């Protein structure tokens, strides 16, 4: 049963991802991206990382996708259906990407832990919280500084110069 759920979520994620990079209308792309992100959140839930899944939905689907929609609407007619959205190098790109996918999958498939199914006891939210405040306190603080810097930078760049 749980395998079926996994296959379903994976299929959704893959299809949505492909759609989000191939759609002509950029607004549709953003929506398909939101769907992909939701599917990925499902994967997180499936992997017992419920907190991460929630964060994914809140930050990504709630925040970043909204930003994308803002950006798309602010730049208006960019997403017109009449305009070609794919560059000339798509053929070569497909070839290289498929080659890359093949290589990566081959690496993973041949690795000793590829068939690993033994599960460890899942990490509890409490443990994640403790780690954030103890072992990873410094990166955590840095992260807040980066977010602040990004915010300030965004304001400075986005300001209309008089």
């Amino acid at each position, binding site marked *: 049963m749980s395998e079926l759920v996994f296959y379903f979520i994976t299929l959704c994620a893959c299809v949505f991802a492909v759609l989000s990079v191939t759609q002509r209308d950029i607004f549709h792309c953003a929506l398909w991206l939101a769907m992909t992100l939701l599917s990925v959140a499902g994967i997180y839930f499936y992997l017992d990382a419920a907190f991460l899944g929630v964060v994914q939905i809140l930050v990504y689907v709630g925040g970043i996708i909204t930003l994308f929609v803002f950006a798309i609407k602010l730049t208006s007619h960019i997403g017109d259906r009449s305009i070609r959205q794919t*560059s000339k*190098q798509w053929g*070569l*790109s497909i070839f*290289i*990407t498929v*080659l*890359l996918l093949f*290589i990566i999958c*081959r*690496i993973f498939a041949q690795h000793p832990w590829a068939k690993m199914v033994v599960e460890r006891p899942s990490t509890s939210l409490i443990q994640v919280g403790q780690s954030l405040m103890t072992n990873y306190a410094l990166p955590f603080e840095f992260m807040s500084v980066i977010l602040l810097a990004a915010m300030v930078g965004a304001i400075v760049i986005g300001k209309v110069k008089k």
Partner: protein
Amino acid sequence: MQIAHYIPLFPFLAFVINIFFGRRLKIVSAYVAITASIVSFLFSLRVFECFKAGEASYSLGTWLTIGGKPLNFGIIIDPLTIMMLLIVTFIGTFILIYSIGYMHDDPRFSRYFAYISLFMSSMLGLVLADNFVLLLIFWEGVGLCSYLLIAFWYERPAAARAGLKAFITTRIGDTGFLVGMLLLFFTCGTFHFTDLKSLTGPEPILTLAAILIFTGAMGKSAQFPLHVWLPDAMEGPTAVSALIHAATMVAAGVYLVARCFPLFVDHPMALQTVAVIGGISALMAASIATVNNDIKRVLAYSTISQLGLMMLGLGVGGLSAGTFHLMTHAFFKALLFLCAGSVIHAVGTQDIQKMGGLLSKMKITGVTFCIGTLALAGVPPFAGFWSKDEILLTAWNNHHPVLFVVALLTSFLTAFYMSRLIILVLFGKARSELHAHESPLTMTVPLIVLSFFAAFAGFIGSPLKEAAEGAQGSFVIMAISTVVSLTGLALAYLLYIRRVVLVPVASIQGLHNLLVNKYYIDEIYDAYLIKPCLAFCRGAFSFDAKIVDGVVNGTAEVVQFCSGLLRRTQTGLIQNYLLVQVFSVVLLLIWLLKI
């Protein structure tokens, strides 16, 4: 006291001062040069005294070591060197004094004295050098100064061309000299003159080396067939002609042969070559001088002729005779050139057909000119008589009848053309409007001093004279020589004062043309050497322009084309770059995982 090596330094110092500060020094630059020259003269006298007290050559240390053999900064001190030192500094001093008057209104006054100082420095170094390499350096130095001074008035195209001609012609000889010198080194392993006495090596190679060294002397001393530059060198200031192209530099060739005399004596073929070339030059130049109408060119041909005579003297084995003539010739030829300069200065032309009757207007110049002429003509008791007599004597004693006759004929022609020269210049009536006046004191005093030496230097005798050279039969030779000289004078008197027509003009017209055109040697060189050479050069130039440049430009174009192709990859589109990056990563993975 080892002071000989300071001698060339004083003129060099004067050169440095004059070349850098000449513009500000103005007339003082002449005094600087003269002072340096006088100091050098005094040092030379001191070296002479030391030599008499028994001092010998010395070395200032090793310069190079070539193949394990040391090459020294050596100073050679022997009678030949001391004679040359005294001649150069003594005559040089008076010519510098003379130049103050002669060059007084020249815009490059100080430059002139700088060059002359450099020349004296090189010349003094040349005679002091005790090996070929050192000598060659100074040898080229005097060549350079000769070029600079011939082309001193480079605004005149003829002067610039004459400078080039002199430089290139002597360069041909110098190349031979260099090859000969190196041949000698590779055969015998020495550059030092002192080793020349005891050389061991294959006979033909040493003979060849000697002849090649002699070609250097031929170029410098303007011997046939490299004599063509000297008459043209008369484009330079007359005082330069006196110092460089009469008294000293052209004598460097004779000096070189004298310096290498042991080498030549050991190889009769080489010695024979020297004598024959000397004889040809002597006779040929003397015959050309009989018809030339340019006062300086007559003297230039006379110089070639006299240098030929010196070579002949050396060639018949008379080291002392040749060098003795070198010394006396330096005095009277310098005197004659200075007189000619004084005349040119006064009348403003060099064409003797336009002069005449100048004796009454220019007494000092005229009288000294006559003394110089008598000395050159070999009339006893003037200096030229003694040295020429010695050459004749040596030729006779060493059984060279043909060369003896050649020398005799040369001295006959010498007497003839010199008499013709002074008759046309000094006697008779003026043949054009001339406002001649006597030259200033700075010019006449050197004339008087030099004429004194031209008259009496012969009594000193050759500094190289050995006791063994007896005077046997010398009175007969002296008598013959005197008679021949006087015959020459008499012939000129008849032809140019009495205007006696000895032979119909038409019968000698062909000969006259031949002489006026200097045996067509310049024309022959032009047709058979210079034109083919220029044609070859043009060919080489077009080869360079089309093929060499073509290759170079072609390389550039190929590079440009390839870089044009490469530039296509620089699209500026980030996605292209990204594609290349991803592609590279894929390749890297394939390579790392050996898939």
